[in-house]
């Protein structure tokens, strides 16, 4: 990840499954506050153990007019299988209840309209349609959050939604292979590729192959949905691999178009397929336009590499502002009588640092609570994540930023604008 890398997507896939800290360094008490003045809901992944408070006692943080905070631990010292907390449990309850209800309604409708339908067909159709709908929901969560922060709670545990979608799709895939390919003399997996060899046809295309490859992509994404993989495959590789969800979506689109829809006469299925694609595409375009507006903002170079970006009054205390200058994605923070600037892309999952807040003297990413010291961009010890920093100065009431990034973790004297508050 380069310091100037622009944020292109709100986490194509979003991890969950966290760590449990074994020791509590001062700065591991992450209080993540999603986007200033936003009613705070669960939008992060990991809970932490505060030295003073219950890790799951969310209401404990409601004090005065301070936005509701949630404790998270993203940068702790031990991995666990799943870092459950109250929000995640609730998220999953709603998710699986929704899946069960959807399946029940679908099966009911199928039985009503096709009284002679077999159990095998019901399983195949039910799992395929459920996974298909889940995939669309997963794909639109990112742009929805970019367009409106109120959707952030949906992002909170999208990782579990993705894994759930894979499990449902896997049932469909495995059942299909058993049902249609495992009963002959040919190896079942070979049969997937050879039972229909009309690879140049359109209407009779071997659509099973498309679904097979999509399922492999979903498998790779599901098994790597843990921060262990994010760290050890490297964030860049991990992110790129998870962007394959769009390739999988294209394969699924064709799988459905050349498969089930060749046999279905009811136009509702075509409406669902094309309508789903239209919604996904439209939301991505709309969020892309919104992002581009930020990129197009022009800042006039004033002197010695510094750009005048905004007034002090444009920033709320302990809040940030994202600016794009010379292809640099910069987050400027006003805190404790000082102003600092760091790269706007979180090392964890490329979250928008500038939409976070300063909590416990640390810039806190709004997505998963990763923290960085404003003056040097370093995560507090024992963590070793580092962001690029930028020189900042104040002229009168105006904030000026030098868009040349300094090496990650470089200390930059903050610009001081007022009396430092007691900490």
């Amino acid at each position, binding site marked *: 990840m380069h310091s100037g890398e622009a944020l292109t997507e709100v986490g194509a896939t979003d991890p969950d499954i966290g760590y449990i800290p074994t020791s509590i360094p001062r700065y591991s008490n992450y209080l993540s506050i999603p986007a200033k003045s936003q009613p705070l809901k669960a939008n992060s992944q990991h809970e932490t153990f505060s030295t003073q408070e219950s890790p799951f006692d969310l209401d404990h943080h409601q004090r005065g007019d301070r936005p509701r905070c949630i404790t998270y631990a993203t940068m702790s010292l031990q991995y666990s299988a799943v870092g459950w907390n109250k929000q995640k449990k609730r998220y999953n309850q709603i998710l699986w209840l929704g899946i069960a209800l959807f399946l029940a309604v679908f099966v009911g409708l199928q039985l009503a309209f096709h009284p002679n339908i077999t159990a095998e067909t019901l399983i195949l159709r039910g799992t395929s349609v459920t996974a298909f709908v889940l995939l669309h929901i997963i794909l639109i969560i990112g742009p929805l959050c970019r367009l409106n922060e109120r959707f952030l709670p949906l992002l909170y545990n999208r990782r579990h939604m993705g894994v759930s979608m894979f499990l449902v799709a896997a049932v469909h895939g495995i059942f299909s292979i058993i049902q249609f390919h495992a009963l002959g003399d040919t190896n079942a997996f070979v049969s997937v590729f050879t039972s229909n060899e009309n690879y140049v046809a359109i209407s009779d295309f071997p659509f099973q192959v498309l679904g097979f490859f999509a399922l492999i992509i979903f498998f790779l994404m599901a098994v790597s949905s843990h921060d262990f993989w994010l760290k*050890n495959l490297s964030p860049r590789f991990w992110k790129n691999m998870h962007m394959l969800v769009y390739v999988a979506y294209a394969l699924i689109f064709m799988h459905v178009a050349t498969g089930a829809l060749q046999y279905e006469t009811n136009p509702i299925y075509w409406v669902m397929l094309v309508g789903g694609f239209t919604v996904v595409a439209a939301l991505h375009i709309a969020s892309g336009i919104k992002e581009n507006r930020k990129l197009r903002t022009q800042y006039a170079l004033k002197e010695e590499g510094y750009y005048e970006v905004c007034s002090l009054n444009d920033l709320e205390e302990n809040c940030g502002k994202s600016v794009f200058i010379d292809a640099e994605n910069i987050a400027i923070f006003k805190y404790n009588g000082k102003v600092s600037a760091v790269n706007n892309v979180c090392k964890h999952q490329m979250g928008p640092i500038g939409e976070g807040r300063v909590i416990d003297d640390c810039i806190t990413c709004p997505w998963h609570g990763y923290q960085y010291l404003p003056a040097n961009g370093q995560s507090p010890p024992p963590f070793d994540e580092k962001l690029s920093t930028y020189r900042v100065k104040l002229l009168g009431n105006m904030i000026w930023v030098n868009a040349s990034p300094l090496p990650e973790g470089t200390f930059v004297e903050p610009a001081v604008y007022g009396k430092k508050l007691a900490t």
Partner: protein
Amino acid sequence: MTEQIAQIILFIAAAYLAIGLIFSVFFYLKGMSKIDAITAESTWGFKLIVFPGVIAFWPFLLSKWRKNR
């Protein structure tokens, strides 16, 4: 022709996964804590949940393990 290609692909995939399975034994014994010290104190649930990934991504883990030696 298609069947032959499919057989070859299947054989390569099976070999890849078999190597991954063998690799996982050594990885859990020594490699995991070498590439990521945090895993030493991690739970068995974590180790179980990353197991499919160890088999799927073994070349990446092996590469990182070798670099960390």
